[in-house]
C-alpha cells in the first residue's frame, strides 16, 4: 500500500518549518565559541537548514540519510545534527541499522549487520550505522497541536496573571532565595509592611510570571499590556498554521510506518509493478535508497539439513523422489538423479509435443515401466515396505515425506543459520596444534593474546572431542559430529 501525502499535509510541514525552524536548527549554543576557519564556519551553518531538509523530505518517504546528505550537498554530520534535533521535536522519525561489517571493523563484539538500533548513542561508535529518516506526520500533527495549545495557554495565563501563589525573589545576588506568599507571615516586617528575606534581610521583590523578572505593580501592568499585544500578534501570525491544522485535523494522516514495514511493503509493490509490466517510473529514484535497506534487511537464510551426512551423500542437483503413495494417474514420476531419467523425460516431452494421445500414453507407459525398473534396481527393493493403503492418502504430503526421509528421525533436524564464511586465520592453525599438546606449548606462541590463553589450555585436554568456542563460527562442514554445532531443535 503506497502512502500518498496530501498536499495540505505538505503545506503544513512547510508552514511549521517556516514558523518554528527558520533559525539555527539546532539552536546555537551561546557558550560555544564561534568557529574560526572557513570550513568550520561552513559546517557550523545551521540557519534555515531545517527548511531545506524538510522540503527535501516532503518528496521522499523513508530515505537514507547519506543519500539525503549527498542530494543536499551537505556534510553528513551537519545533516545528522539537524535531523537529530528535528527527531527530538517529533517531526521526523529515524531508524538506525548496523552496517554490514567489513573485515577491518570486525572485532566480533558488536552484534550483526541489519540489526535495528534503538538508540544511536548506546552503541559502540566504531560500528557504522545506516540511518534512515522520514517525516513522521502523525507525530508532527500532534506536536504542532500541542505546541500551539501550550503557547496559547502560556500567554493566556500570563495575561490573566491569576497565579494564586505569588513568588518573591531576593534581589541579593549571593542569596537569590525564592519565597511564596504562603510564607508571608514569616517574611512580613511589621515596621515597614514589606517582605524581607529570611536569610539576608533584603527587601524581597515580587516575581513577574515564571521567568526571573521582578517588578512592582506598575511594571506588572506594563508587562500585562505587552503580553496582550504579543498574544494578538502571535494569533495573527500563526493564523495560517492554525487554519492549516484545522483543515488537516480530520483528514487521514499519512503514515509511513516503521522502516522495516515500509521496506517490505515497497519491495512487494515494486515486485507487483514489475509483474504487471508497468515499470517503476516513480520508484526508480528510490531504488538506490532501497538497495541499502534490502541489503540490511536481507532475510536470514535458513538451511534445513535433514539427516546430517546421509543427505549429503546424495547429489545435490537431483530432484527429490516423489513417494509412491503420491503417485497419481498420468503423473510423470521423476527418478532421483539419473541421467537416463532426464533423457526419458526429454524424450517423453518431445513425443508429447507432436504425438497423438495414444502416442503419449504409450510413451508414458514405457517410460514409467523403465523408471520403476531402474528404481527397484537402485534401491534393491527398499520401497517394498511402503504400506499399500498409503497410496490413497495424499493429505499432509510434506509431513510424510519428512518421516520417510532416511535417518530424519534418528538424527534430529539441525538447522544452521547461514553465516558468512569467516575469514580463515592462517596464523592460528599452528597454535591450535600447539594447544593440543600442552606440554610443548610455548608461552607466547605467535602473538596470542593473554586473555585467550587460559581458554586454550582448558580446551587442550578435550581437543579431540570438543571444538573450542572460537571455531564454531568457522566453516562447520569440517566437523564430523553435528552435536557441537550451533543447533536448534526444529519446532
Amino acid at each position, binding site marked *: 500500500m503506497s502512502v500518498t501525502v496530501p498536499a495540505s499535509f505538505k503545506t503544513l510541514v512547510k508552514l511549521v518549518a517556516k514558523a518554528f525552524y527558520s533559525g539555527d536548527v539546532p539552536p546555537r549554543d551561546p557558550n560555544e565559541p564561534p568557529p574560526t576557519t572557513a570550513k568550520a564556519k561552513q559546517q557550523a551553518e545551521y540557519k534555515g537548514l531545517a527548511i531545506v531538509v524538510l522540503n527535501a523530505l516532503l518528496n521522499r518517504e523513508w530515505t537514507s540519510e547519506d543519500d539525503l546528505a549527498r542530494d543536499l550537498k551537505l556534510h553528513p554530520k551537519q545533516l545528522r545534527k539537524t535531523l537529530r534535533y528535528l527527531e527530538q521535536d517529533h517531526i521526523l522519525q529515524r531508524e538506525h541499522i548496523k552496517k554490514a561489517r567489513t573485515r577491518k571493523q570486525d572485532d566480533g563484539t558488536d552484534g550483526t549487520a541489519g540489526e535495528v538500533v534503538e538508540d544511536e548513542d548506546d552503541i559502540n561508535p566504531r560500528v557504522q550505522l545506516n540511518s534512515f529518516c522520514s517525516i513522521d506526520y502523525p507525530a508532527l500533527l500532534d506536536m504542532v497541536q500541542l505546541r500551539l495549545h501550550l503557547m496559547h495557554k502560556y500567554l493566556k495565563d500570563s495575561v490573566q496573571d491569576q497565579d*494564586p501563589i*505569588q513568588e518573591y525573589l531576593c534581589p541579593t545576588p549571593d542569596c537569590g532565595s525564592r519565597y*511564596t*506568599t*504562603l510564607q*508571608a*507571615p514569616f517574611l512580613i516586617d*511589621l515596621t515597614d*509592611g514589606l517582605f524581607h528575606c529570611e536569610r539576608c534581610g533584603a527587601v524581597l521583590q515580587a516575581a513577574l510570571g515564571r521567568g526571573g523578572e521582578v517588578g512592582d*505593580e506598575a511594571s506588572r501592568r506594563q508587562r500585562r499590556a505587552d503580553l496582550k499585544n504579543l498574544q494578538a500578534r502571535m494569533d495573527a501570525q500563526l493564523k495560517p498554521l492554525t487554519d492549516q491544522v484545522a483543515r488537516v485535523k480530520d483528514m487521514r494522516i499519512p503514515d509511513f510506518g516503521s522502516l522495516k514495514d515500509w521496506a517490505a511493503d515497497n519491495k512487494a509493490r515494486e515486485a507487483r509493478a514489475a509483474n504487471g509490466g508497468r515499470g517503476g517510473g516513480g520508484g526508480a529514484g528510490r531504488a538506490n535508497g532501497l538497495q541499502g535497506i534490502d541489503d540490511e534487511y536481507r532475510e536470514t537464510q535458513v538451511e534445513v539439513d535433514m539427516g546430517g551426512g546421509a543427505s549429503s551423500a546424495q547429489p545435490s542437483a537431483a530432484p527429490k523422489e516423489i513417494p509412491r503413495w503420491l503417485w497419481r494417474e498420468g503423473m510423470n514420476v521423476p527418478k532421483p538423479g539419473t541421467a537416463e531419467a532426464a533423457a526419458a523425460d526429454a524424450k517423453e516431452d518431445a513425443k508429447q509435443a507432436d504425438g497423438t494421445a495414444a502416442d503419449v500414453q504409450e510413451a508414458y507407459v514405457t517410460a514409467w515401466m523403465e523408471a520403476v525398473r531402474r528404481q527397484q534396481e537402485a534401491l534393491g527393493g527398499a520401497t517394498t515396505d511402503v504400506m499399500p493403503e498409503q497410496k490413497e492418502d495424499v493429505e499432509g504430503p510434506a509431513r510424510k515425506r519428512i518421516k520417510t526421509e532416511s535417518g530424519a528421525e534418528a538424527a534430529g533436524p539441525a538447522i544452521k543459520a547461514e553465516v558468512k564464511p569467516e575469514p580463515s586465520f592462517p596464523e592460528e592453525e599452528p597454535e591450535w596444534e600447539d594447544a593440543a599438546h600442552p606440554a610443548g606449548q610455548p608461552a607466547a606462541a605467535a602473538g596470542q593474546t593473554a586473555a585467550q590463553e587460559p581458554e586454550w589450555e582448558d580446551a587442550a585436554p578435550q581437543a579431540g572431542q570438543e571444538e573450542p568456542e572460537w571455531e564454531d563460527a568457522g566453516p562447520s562442514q569440517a566437523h564430523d559430529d553435528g552435536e557441537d554445532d550451533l543447533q536448534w531443535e526444529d519446532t
Partner: protein
Amino acid sequence: MFFVLELDKEIELPPRFFGPRLRETLEQKLHSEVEGTCSGAYGFIICVVSTESVSKGIIREGTGSASFNVKYKCVVFRPFRGEVLDAVVTQVNKVGFFAEAGPLQIFVSSHLIPEDFELTTADEPSFVSADGEVRIQLGSEVRLRVVGTRIDASDIFCVGTIKEDYLGVIGDPQA
C-alpha cells in the same frame, strides 16, 4: 469547613484532684488543653462538644499523677483550597493585607486584589477603590476565596483572593 470529630487525648491529673469532682476537673482540663489548638491532620479544634468516655486512670510512678485517656467529640475547622470564607482584616501593607477567619490567618497578595484598588498610606494604610467608595482597612470584613494552603504539623496558613465576582468588602470596621 467545620466538622464534628471524635478524637482522644491523654490527660494527666495531679493527685490533689483525686476526689469526688475528678471527672469535672478532667473535662475542664481537656477543654483548656485542646480548644484553640491546631493540628495539621484535623485543623483547628474550635470547641469540645462532649466527653464520650474516660479510661481508668493509670498512676505514673514517681510523680503520683494519674493519666486518663479521654475520648471526646469536638468541632474542628479546616480550610480547603477553593473555599470561600468571611474574614476580618488585621493588617494592611504594601504587599497586600492579612485577614483572620477565626483562628485562621489568611494573606491576600496585592496582585489578587482587584486592579482598581490603590494603596493609600495617608491616614492608615488601606486599599481604596477607584471611586473611593470601598476601603479595605484594618477591621474591614472581607469575603475571600482560599487559593492556597500551607499546613504544618501545628499550623495552617492560607493565601486568599478577592479578585473574583462576589468577593471583596462586605462590612466596614465596627466603630
